[in-house]
């Protein structure tokens, strides 16, 4: 189970971020206001670690504290370093920091990429280990319950939308001398959190991490999911996929309901299954739009004249299974194409833009959290942390917890 879980994360988290990092850095920048406030509230002279820091967007906040960041994605970490931040490469399950050395830890939109409950717990425990007693951790994860739509299942693959409007606003509190010119162009600094409400021309402030945010896009996205949690998939090698089309099911191994006693076999089948599942994601067609939390009108205007897109917008309020069955029509029409559907104009495979090619292979795995799930996870499995705040913030479930001294007799 462990190897399958880590392989899934390699294929559908790490390698995807490696591929999309260049777009990621260029585009939209935003610091969640409550995270910013958490950082600003820290006493001067604190040491903070941003575990899973990505391109380092939180590392410039609050000059009075020492910040360091880490991530598995080399291109993102390189970018953060180019902005003048102290960053390392490491894995969330094995943090290279000594016990109790941090006053605060951030985990913003990270642990939802761990594919089993056990790994998510281990990640939280590792972060707790590095916190000093009395130190605080803030964790943000994607919520299953979104403002306009609820994910039907918790373990999902989400395709990546490259932002064709490469904008590069950076939200910075101070001008910090950079070690070198950033690889990407940095044109303007978006002033403060308030400004994102005013930005209408692009979704430059829409953080792609937020599933309900906008992407000015040619098409919208399809979400795939497993009908069981991945924990059980890896355990029993059986998988029932919510796949309405019989054409698709034909290609799957007969996995439903079987329970082979042989573990390596199960693991191999589970992996083979994941591979097959991934291969079904092209053509990624159109399904419910991702809405901009802050600015919902912008991207609807930006969408190209694409029948698929308008279909999706109408479908926005439908439950996912209905959306999928509508999509089957599109699938059957393009049955012979092995790659993506042509956009409205009937383009062939050979004329794909680089972004389209990237998009075809970029499915990120997420375990989206139900209400209360994150707090429960901590309360039941991480006794060294005590939850002090638990709230919903723009499509994320958020927890703040404090490290407590455990007395073992």
């Amino acid at each position, binding site marked *: 189970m462990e190897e399958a879980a880590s392989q899934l994360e390699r294929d559908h988290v790490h390698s995807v971020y490696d591929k999309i990092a260049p777009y990621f850095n260029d585009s939209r920048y935003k610091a969640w206001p409550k995270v910013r406030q958490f950082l600003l509230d820290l006493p001067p*002279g604190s*040491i903070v670690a941003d575990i899973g820091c990505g391109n380092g967007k939180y590392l410039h906040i609050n000059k009075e504290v020492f910040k360091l960041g880490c991530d598995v994605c080399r291109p993102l970490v390189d970018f953060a370093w180019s902005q003048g931040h102290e960053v390392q490469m490491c894995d969330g399950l094995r943090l290279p920091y000594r016990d109790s*050395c941090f006053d605060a830890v951030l985990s913003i939109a990270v642990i939802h990429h761990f594919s089993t409950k056990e790994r998510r717990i281990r990640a939280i425990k590792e972060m707790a280990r590095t916190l000093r007693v009395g130190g605080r951790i803030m964790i943000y994860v994607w919520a299953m319950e979104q403002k306009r739509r609820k994910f039907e299942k918790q373990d999902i693959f989400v395709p990546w939308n490259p932002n064709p409007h490469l904008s590069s606003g950076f939200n910075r509190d101070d001008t910090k001398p950079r070690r070198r010119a950033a690889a990407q162009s940095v044109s303007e600094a978006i002033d403060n959190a308030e400004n994102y409400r005013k930005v209408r021309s692009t979704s430059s402030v829409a953080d792609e991490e937020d599933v309900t945010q906008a992407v000015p896009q040619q098409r919208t996205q399809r979400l795939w999911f497993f009908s069981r949690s991945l924990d059980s998939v890896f355990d029993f090698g059986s998988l029932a996929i919510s796949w309405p089309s019989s054409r698709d099911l034909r290609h799957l191994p007969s996995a439903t309901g079987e329970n082979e006693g042989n573990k390596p076999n199960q693991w191999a089948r589970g992996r083979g299954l994941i591979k097959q599942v991934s291969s079904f994601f092209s053509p990624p067609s159109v399904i419910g739009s991702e809405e901009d939390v802050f600015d919902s009108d912008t991207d609807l205007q930006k969408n190209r004249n694409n029948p698929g897109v308008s279909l999706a917008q109408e479908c926005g309020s439908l439950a996912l299974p209905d959306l999928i069955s509508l999509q089957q029509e599109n699938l059957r029409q393009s049955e012979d194409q092995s790659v993506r559907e042509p956009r409205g104009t009937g383009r062939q495979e050979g004329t794909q833009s680089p972004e389209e090619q990237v998009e075809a292979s970029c499915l990120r795995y997420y375990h989206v959290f139900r209400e209360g799930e994150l707090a429960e996870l901590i309360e039941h499995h991480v006794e060294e942390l005590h939850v002090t705040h638990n709230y919903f913030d723009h499509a994320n479930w958020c927890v703040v917890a404090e490290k407590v001294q455990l007395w073992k007799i």
Partner: protein
Amino acid sequence: MKLLTHNMLTSHVKGVTKGYPLLIKATEVKVNEVDFNPKFVCRMIPKLEWSALVQAADQLGHREDLPGELVPDYEKNEDFLKKVHRVLLEVEVIEGCLQCPESGREFPISRGIPNMLLNEDEA
């Protein structure tokens, strides 16, 4: 990698119990100019493993006259704080590696970034 960061880093290879502090083997070191904030330095000091800092500075050839033990009443000692500031925040390892003192495993530092990722068999 600054030495303040290095002070927090440890080897986490499976089975290692004495992975701190990591030995530094640097092939490229830079010294930058960073604004001196005495209060900031003052607050950092109690969070440091002092001997690890001195050892690291030594390994880089940048110890200068940093004392082997913390001087008493350092809060008011601007001279001392400036020395600490330089070693903590201005000296930077750009290329080299960090070595686990127990297992000998080397973690590369390239372009200023230590790569602490473990292989599957080490984790």
